[in-house]
């Protein structure tokens, strides 16, 4: 036990004190911050500066309408177009808009021209188009003598809700289950599930291959023979797996703290109050994400936060942590076994990677399906099968999977941890001492059977 602890300590310390580790751990949040800053600036630049628009409106429609858009300032002139074209810039306008007369009242298409020395951003163009479309529509309705109330009554809004969840046992609708909440919870659940599944996928590959490289290094360095004359091979392997796991956990923890800090800092630097999500939303929708506006119009960010807070975190966090460790443990043990079989020629052992890569990639693909149908057969199978469950079960957690499935999955996971540690240990103890032999699956199979 003491020896295992020594190994864990060394494997951990040697990595976290490495310059490259410190640099990546610190640079990643900074990189994300820079990205957020640049992205924010791009977004902000599109929406920040109001465009001063000079309009020559021969249709008289825009002129007589009440313009509610805050994005641009519209001013009007009757001067001849040719003169305006020359003067709008010197008069302090960003662009000149020419609306020809609108004669055919049934027309659904009207061509409006703009003149500007600079190319307009897609956001500005869309914002002007939206304003014009709204004003023209209002104008056409006014002209048509249709009763506005009748027109309004054509609109239909249908919400599909889950009766079983939205309504409590007593038949009362639970507080917080407003119109959009169940839809929203699915969106949030999908996003959260996707993120958790993706983190697992990355963890398995990044830290799993770190374990593999470290095993190979020891084998190539030939230190391994000296090591296992002092400790049991399984101790060395477990020490490595746990030590590298600690490194991964440290890195994730630093990121979990630094990334929100950096992002918040960036928001502060940009002058936006991070609490005021509405402002960000405005910026985003003005900055070219206009197509999102329709969707985000319906969703209040406070509602998103409420919905987020309303998730069953006391279940999600511990279960995610269990699968995080379980998944990492199973796969990094297997990576250790492959590393032990590989030796100095990486290319030769490449085929041995396949049995590890396939389930991980398969799980990642299955996760997309599971997110769309979190209680479907594939999702249930994938979240129980121990080689895919570390990725798929977390992706289902926000959808309240049945407790028995979580319980069974954890049980299978723990049994598999034991089994794969045993299996990997059997391969490892032979592999690390095997040099210059071409290793294939048949050979590895024999190793498992060897007496120790």
């Amino acid at each position, binding site marked *: 036990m003491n*020896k295992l602890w*020594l*190994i864990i300590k*060394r494997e951990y310390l*040697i990595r976290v004190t490495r310059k490259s580790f410190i640099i990546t751990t610190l640079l990643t949040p900074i990189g994300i911050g820079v990205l957020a800053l640049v992205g924010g600036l791009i977004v902000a630049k599109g929406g920040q500066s109001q465009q001063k628009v000079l309009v020559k409106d021969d249709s008289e429609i825009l002129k007589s309408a009440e313009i509610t858009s805050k994005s641009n300032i519209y001013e009007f002139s009757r001067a001849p177009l040719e003169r305006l074209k020359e003067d709008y810039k010197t008069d302090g306008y960003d662009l000149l808009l020419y609306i020809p007369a609108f004669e055919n009242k049934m027309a659904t298409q009207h061509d409006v021209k703009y003149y500007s020395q600079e190319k307009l951003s897609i956001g500005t163009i869309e914002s002007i188009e939206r304003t014009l479309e709204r004003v023209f529509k209002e104008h056409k309705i006014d002209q048509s003598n249709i009763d506005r109330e009748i027109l309004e009554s054509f609109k239909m809004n249908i919400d599909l809700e889950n009766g079983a969840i939205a309504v409590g046992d007593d038949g009362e609708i639970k507080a917080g289950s407003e119109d959009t909440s169940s839809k929203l919870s699915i969106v949030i659940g999908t996003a959260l599930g996707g993120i958790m599944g993706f983190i697992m996928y990355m963890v398995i590959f990044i830290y799993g291959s770190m374990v593999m490289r470290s095993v190979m290094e*020891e084998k190539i*360095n*030939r*230190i*391994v*023979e*000296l*090591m*296992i*004359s*002092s*400790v*049991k091979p399984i101790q060395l392997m477990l020490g490595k797996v746990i030590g590298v796991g600690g490194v991964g956990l440290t890195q994730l923890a630093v990121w979990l703290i630094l990334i929100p800090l950096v992002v918040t800092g960036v928001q502060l630097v940009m002058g936006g109050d991070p609490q005021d999500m509405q402002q960000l939303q405005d910026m985003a929708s003005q900055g070219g994400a206009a197509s999102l506006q329709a969707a985000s119009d319906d969703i209040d960010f406070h509602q998103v936060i409420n919905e987020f807070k309303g998730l069953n975190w006391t279940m999600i966090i511990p279960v995610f942590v269990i699968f995080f460790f379980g998944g990492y443990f199973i796969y990094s043990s297997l990576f250790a076994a492959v590393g032990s079989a590989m030796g100095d020629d990486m290319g030769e052992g490449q085929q041995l990677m396949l049995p590890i890569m396939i389930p991980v990639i398969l799980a990642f693909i299955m996760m997309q399906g599971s997110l769309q149908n979190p209680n479907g057969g594939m999702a249930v199978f994938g979240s129980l099968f121990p080689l895919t469950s570390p990725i798929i079960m977390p992706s289902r957690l926000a959808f309240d999977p049945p407790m028995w499935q979580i319980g069974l999955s954890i049980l299978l996971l723990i049994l598999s941890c034991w089994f794969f540690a045993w299996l990997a240990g059997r391969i490892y103890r032979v592999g690390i*001492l095997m040099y210059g032999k071409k290793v294939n699956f048949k050979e590895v199979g*024999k190793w498992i059977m060897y*007496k*120790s």
Partner: protein
Amino acid sequence: MAILSLRNVVKQYHNHRAVDSVSFDVEKQKLFGLLGPNGAGKTSLIRIITTITGADEGEILIDGEQLNSYHPSQLGYMPEERGLYKKMKVGDQLMYLAQLKGLDKKEAKQKIGYWMKKFDIEAWWPKKIEELSKGMQQKIQFIATVVHDPKLIIFDEPFSGLDPINTNLIKEEIRQLKEKGTSIIFSTHRMEQVEEICEEIVLINEGKVILQGDVNEIKQNFKENLYKIEFDGEIKSDFSQFDVQSRTANSITIKLPADVDGNELIKYAVSLGMHIVSFNEVLPTLNDIFIKQVESN
């Protein structure tokens, strides 16, 4: 009393018997040679003794006790293929290896300090292994092998890759360890390298023991009544009445019949009026004995 006893030890790898019913004893405070050509089974045997692998059959006793998981801390092992963590500092590395052998921090530090001082390499503590030359690394490897004061030390090809100065240094350290009561096993296929320092040997080939015992006794048993006369000037006779094995400009090697004493030969040589520089009985080298044994088996 034997520090190590092997009784009918067998190790079978898939259709290949690497160790075939090997038995021998290593007496305490002896320099013991485990000799044999490449692939004879030496490394397999060592791995069994160091608990890296298990034997399929047979018994291994350390100091009269069945080999168990506590023994590795009493054994020192320098593998043929040297290896250290290249990116680790010399001091950290030795501390780590010493603690894995069961020393606590304080003991480890003190013992490492002793050895580093002895080799006059105290300034290396913060250096990384990869910054050291090969010879320097060997010294670190040697310290790692002996730092925990093992009862029994196994050196696998200890002098390979060492220059003559370091070879002598290590030989001297080994002699001192022996005087302090440590038992030492040399494993090598370079028999000429150890025959002068080993007191007892076991010769193995293809997994089997083909010869074992005291080095001098073995040599006596295998001697062929060969004598070498070295001289200055003229040889004066062609010694054709003897069985001449070889001759050079100023030496001649002669094989005498089993019942003839060396004194007869030197008397004859003196009577010829030769100027004799040296007269020696030629004992077979371990290499010769080994080849002879393998051929006769």
